[in-house]
């Protein structure tokens, strides 16, 4: 192998850094949407590589549904402090109150859909013209069709039929007032790429990604953490299991997997052996309908 050859993780990293710098070069008021999940943690790591020793040209923004895992929130605060970057947090609960929104009901009442309102309000409040997010095209079929620079109208809506052609590595971020662009620097990464990169770069993760004991209830084959946000009925089977999280979202819509994986190596072995996709195994919200993700994206969801 010639010394002028990059392995695939270095190629992916370089591409993502290039995209982040295009955001910095093209937009007045960008933001990086940070959730505390592994994908957005990788985004922050890439931003460090793209902009250090300078400051980030954008704040970290977290839309907090109030249903997050405490471990993810603690990690978020510690990370922002450690890297010395600005963190903006906006609460979905505040939007619900201010706008008189109706809280969803049901066993796993999820504020996932309401998140969109808070996100759009936050975009308006800070006049963000670009929001960097950690979505990957391998996650879901609608995402597979989304551009790296994805233009949203003033209602935050994605129109899959009116996407701009995206050629070479040339990204067109020009927009009208009120519009904004969602930018996905890790579009071309898969779940396994993310984990291999975390291992290579030795990136620290919230503890819930690793095996731990947790009280869970079993629902249609999925393990949901027992919390104040989930309604437990007498017919439910609740037990303590050794689990870890493969994705980290709200406690109401993210399921755990049984696992004794304590290290990144163990996790990677498990992912290679798994027979279920990341979203299929751990996301309760995507199961609602075939076009669930497409609908939510069209409505301004990330």
């Amino acid at each position, binding site marked *: 192998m*010639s010394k*002028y050859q990059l392995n695939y993780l270095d190629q992916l990293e370089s591409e993502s850094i290039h995209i982040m710098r*295009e955001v*910095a070069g093209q937009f007045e008021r960008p933001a990086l949407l940070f959730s505390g999940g592994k994908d957005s943690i990788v985004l922050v790591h890439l931003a460090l590589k793209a902009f250090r020793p*300078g400051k980030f*040209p954008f704040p970290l923004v977290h839309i907090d549904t109030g249903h997050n895992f405490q471990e993810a929130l603690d990690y978020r605060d510690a990370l922002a402090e450690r890297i010395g970057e600005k963190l903006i947090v906006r609460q979905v609960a505040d939007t619900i109150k201010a706008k008189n929104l109706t809280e969803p009901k049901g066993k796993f009442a999820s504020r996932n859909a309401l998140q969109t309102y808070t996100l759009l309000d936050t975009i308006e409040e800070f006049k963000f013209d670009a929001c960097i997010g950690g979505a990957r095209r391998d996650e879901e079929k609608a995402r*597979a069709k989304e551009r790296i620079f994805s233009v949203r109208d003033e209602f935050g809506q994605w129109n899959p039929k009116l996407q701009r052609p*995206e050629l070479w590595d040339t990204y*067109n971020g020009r927009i009208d007032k009120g519009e904004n662009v969602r930018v996905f620097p890790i579009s071309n990464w898969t779940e396994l790429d993310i984990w291999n990169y975390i291992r290579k770069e030795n990136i620290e993760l919230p503890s819930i990604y690793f095996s731990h004991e947790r009280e869970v209830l079993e629902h249609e084959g999925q393990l949901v953490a027992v919390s104040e946000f989930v309604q437990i009925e007498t017919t439910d089977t609740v037990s303590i299991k050794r689990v870890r999280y493969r994705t980290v979202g709200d406690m109401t819509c993210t399921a755990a997997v049984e696992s004794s994986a304590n290290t990144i190596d163990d996790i990677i072995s498990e992912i290679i052996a798994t027979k279920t996709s990341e979203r*299929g195994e751990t996301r309760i919200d995507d199961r609602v309908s075939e076009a669930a993700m497409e609908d939510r994206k069209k409505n301004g969801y990330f």
Partner: protein
Amino acid sequence: MDILRFITAGSVDDGKSTLIGRLLYDSKSILIDQLEAIEKQTKNREDGEIDLALLTDGLRAEREQGITIDVAYKYFTTPKRKFIIADAPGHIQYTRNMVTGASNSDLAIILIDARHGVVEQTRRHSIIASLLNIPHVVVAVNKMDLVEYSHDVYNNILIDYAAVAKSLGLKDVRYIPISALNGDNIVDRSTKMDWYEGEGLLQILETVVVTDDINLTDARFPVQYVIRPQTEALHDYRGYAGKVISGIYKKGDSVTVQPSGLTTTISAIEVSGIEVEEAFAPQSAILHLTDDVDVSRGDLITLTENQPSVSNELEVLLCWMDHKPLVAGNKYQLQINSRLVRAVVKEFQYKVNVNSLEQESAPEKVQLNDIIKATIKTASPIPYDSYQHLRVNGGAILIDETSHVTVGACMIQ
């Protein structure tokens, strides 16, 4: 392990989505829940077979109409490579989608229906592959099961296609007979076509050498962003952040900044936050220059000994991608890598017939999916290379100044 980006091109019923589904399925990149989801959808259909095409049709309208609207990106990995597939729709009206998908591809799979042989769309797809300068082409003759795996049928198609490849000057063309539906010659060699002595499709994809396609001679570094911490400790730090799109930069190299033409020396290079002696394509890097010259986003740092052309008049092949037609004299923004300038499309020399490559007289109005030869004048000079020589510094997009939409793709001559 490296990455291969490829595009699949075929007409509507050539089985393109089935082929992709098959590659994903046979490389075990499809997981049970995804398979269950398509099984569920297939049950609502009449034939009852699992429709692998459903794996790639992501939008509701696509599933309802049974067509593919937009370029979908799919991923799979084998122990040898990571693969990124751009699945471009085959419809006539979607030339722009194929151009989009082709722009980043190392390889094109051109699908031919064994029953129909080389048809108009085969030519069109091959012409686009050649205009976009995709380095490698694999001609996959599909649906061999429907022609009784006939060697003669395959051979005749080869002869026909070889003529197309020759007329287009395609450099690296390989041929393979397959049945995407049954999995013949996809991952495993088919037992039904003993006469075929080549590798299976996946093997071809795993072994095509793509590192040689990266140009390490003509060093080009578009500046994206200037990093200036302006803190006490880093008061004088000034780093030019960008990506080495081609070539190699070493500490101490004499460089010229285009289009200003100022010459200076590289004093330091950083890659991934670490100071290094050299940076090469396609690394993202930060360059430091000895002199305090005026460099900003949109400038191109090149080796002094190897310069691009610099001009404010460009001869281009232009693929028009907007519903609003292009009229000579219209003004646009032209973006080439990080450089954005105002531009006017001055005159059209001829229109390329995308089915025959013949030059036709230039139309008054250029319509969606037309490819024309045109002259573009820019408000300030552009440092560029010819697209056929250096893809990464010869492709530009045109942006409508009022709608901000990307309306054209330019391959600079």
